[in-house]
C-alpha cells in the first residue's frame, strides 16, 4: 500500500520472522479505527452544532453532495475537464522533458550549456508564472495546458538527465566493445537503462500536473475543479467543496496507483530510488 517495503525497526533488528503477526494486527486495525473515529467526530461535531455549521458540514452531507454532484454532472463535469487538461499537459510536458533530457544527458556540451539555465528556472514557483502567461494566453484551456506542460518538463527532464548520467559506464563500454553504433546504443542500452529514473520522474510529474492544473484554475478563475473550489468557498457551499476535495483525493490516489502498475511492468528488473525534483 505504501512506498515503504522494509520491515520497521520495532520488529527486532535481526529477529527471525514471526510465525504469526498478532501484535501488529491489532495496531493495524487500530489505524483504520482511528480513521473511522475521526470521521465520527467530524459527523457528530457538525451535527451537534459544536462547530459553526457554515463551514463545517457533517460528513454524511458531504457524501450526499458527492453522489449528487457526480450524478448530476456538476462535479463530474469539472473533474473531467480538470483531468483532461492535466493529462494533456502531462503528455506534452512529459514528451518534451524526456526528449530534452535524452539530448542533455547524452551530449555533454548541451548539459554544460543548459543545466545552469534549468537550475535557474526550476525554483520559480508555478503560481508566479500564471499571471504573466494569462496576458498571452488568456484564461482558457490553452493557458492551463501550457502551464502544466511547463511545470512537468522540469522534473521529467532532470530525472531523465540524471538517469542517463548515472548509467554504469561499464554498460556503455560493453556496448562499444560489441561495436554497436550510437543510435543502437541510444535505443537499446541508454533508454532501457535510464527507464527507472525516467519513470520515476514521470510519476513525480503526475501529481505535480494535478497540483499545477488546480493552481492554474484557481488563479485564472475559469472552469475546472480549482475554480469550483473557489466558487464554493465564496458561495459558502462547504458540502460541495468537501465533496470535490474527496473526489480529488480519490483521483490523486488512483492516478498514482495506475502509474505504479504500469511502472512495475516496465521496469520489473530494477528498483532504484528516484532523483527528486
Amino acid at each position, binding site marked *: 500500500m505504501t512506498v515503504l517495503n522494509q520491515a520497521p525497526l520495532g520488529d527486532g*533488528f*535481526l*529477529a*527471525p*520472522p514471526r*510465525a504469526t503477526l498478532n501484535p501488529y494486527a491489532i495496531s493495524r486495525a487500530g489505524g483504520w479505527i482511528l480513521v473511522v473515529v475521526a470521521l465520527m467526530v467530524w459527523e457528530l461535531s457538525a451535527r451537534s452544532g459544536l462547530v459553526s455549521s457554515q463551514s463545517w458540514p457533517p460528513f454524511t452531507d458531504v457524501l450526499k453532495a458527492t453522489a449528487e454532484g457526480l450524478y448530476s454532472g456538476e462535479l463530474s463535469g469539472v473533474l473531467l475537464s480538470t483531468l483532461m487538461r492535466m493529462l494533456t499537459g502531462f503528455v506534452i510536458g512529459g514528451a518534451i522533458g524526456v526528449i530534452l533530457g535524452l539530448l542533455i544527458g547524452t551530449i555533454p556540451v548541451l548539459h554544460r550549456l543548459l543545466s545552469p539555465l534549468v537550475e535557474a528556472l526550476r525554483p520559480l514557483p508555478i503560481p508566479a508564472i500564471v499571471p504573466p502567461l494569462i496576458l498571452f494566453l488568456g484564461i482558457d484551456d490553452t493557458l492551463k495546458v501550457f502551464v502544466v506542460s511547463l511545470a512537468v518538463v522540469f522534473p521529467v527532464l532532470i530525472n531523465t538527465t540524471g538517469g542517463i548520467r548515472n548509467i554504469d559506464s561499464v554498460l556503455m563500454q560493453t556496448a562499444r566493445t560489441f561495436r554497436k553504433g550510437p543510435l543502437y546504443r541510444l535505443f537499446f542500452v541508454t533508454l532501457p537503462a535510464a527507464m527507472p529514473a525516467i519513470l520515476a520522474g514521470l510519476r513525480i510529474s503526475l501529481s505535480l500536473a494535478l497540483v499545477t492544473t488546480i493552481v492554474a484554475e484557481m488563479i485564472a478563475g475559469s472552469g475546472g475543479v480549482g475554480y469550483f473550489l473557489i466558487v464554493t468557498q465564496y458561495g459558502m457551499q462547504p458540502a460541495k467543496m468537501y465533496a470535490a476535495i474527496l473526489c480529488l483525493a480519490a483521483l490523486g490516489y488512483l492516478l498514482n496507483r495506475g502509474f505504479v502498475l504500469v511502472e512495475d511492468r516496465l521496469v520489473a528488473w530494477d528498483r532504484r530510488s528516484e532523483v527528486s525534483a
Partner: protein
Amino acid sequence: MLRPVHRDASVPEPASEAQTILSVQDLCHGFTVNGKAVPVFQGVSLDIAQGEFLGVLGPSGCGKSTLLQIIAGLLPSVSGRVMFEGHPIVAPPEDMVYLFQQYNKSLLPWRSTKANVGFALEGRGLSRQEKNERCLEYLRIVGLADFADHFPWQLSGGMQQRVAIARALAANPKVLLMDEPFSAVDALTRLELQTLVLDVWAKSKLTIVMVTHDVDEAVFMADRIAMLGERPSSVATVVETGLPRPRDPISTRELPRFLKLRHSLLNMLLKRPNEDSPQRPPQDFGHA
C-alpha cells in the same frame, strides 16, 4: 609488519582445567520460510574457557554466524541457552563485543575514525579528554594513530577493519566475538590483520571466538576449533590445534601438525573419507 606473537605457555591448557567463561547449552535455532520450519542447528553445546582462542568452522549455511549472534545476545534462540560467567544471556551483555562481518557497514560513516572508536566509550560518563586519550591509544595499538581524523570512506578495507577492532577493544570486553573478520580483505592484508589480532590477544586476557570459513586461518590462530556439521548442525567435533605459540605466519603454516590438521579438517568439510580420526592426537610433532 609481520612478527611472531608471544604467549606464556607454549601449549594451552585443556579446556576443562581453565575457567569456563562461556557455556553454550543445547542450543536450538531455526526460522520459518513460507510457513515451513527450517531448523538451523539442534543441540549445539560448547564450553569456552577464559582466555582461549576458539575457532568455529563449518560448511556454508550451517549457521555459524547465527550461532555467534545468539552468543552475542543479538538474537534470541528458539531453545537452549548461553551462560556467560554464570548468567544466562538475554541481551547483549556487558564485557562482550561482537564484530560484524560487514565491518565497513558497522562504522558510522558520518564520524571520523577517532569518533568511531569513541562510540564504544560513550554513555559511560567519561570526560572528553579521557575519551580522546583512550581513543588515540587504541588507534595506536592497531596502527592507525595517523588516521584519527580520517573518515571511513577514505580508508581501505583493511584499515576499516582495524578501526572496528580498535573500537571493540575500546569497550574493554572480556570476550570478543568475530564473524568472518577477514573474509573481505585481500590475502596480504589478511595476514597482517591475523598477526595484529593474535598480538592483541596475547597481550590481554581476552577470550576470542572467531567464526571463519578458512581452515588455514582457523588452524593458524586458534587454540581449539569447533567444527559444526551440516544443517541441522551440532558440534561435530572439537579439535585442539596443539600448535606452539608464538605463531609465525610462514613457519607455523609449514609444520607437519598444521598440515595434518588442515588435511583432516578440510576432509571433513569436503565430506571426503578421513584416514585418521582428528580426535586422536597425532604422535609426531615434527619441528616444534
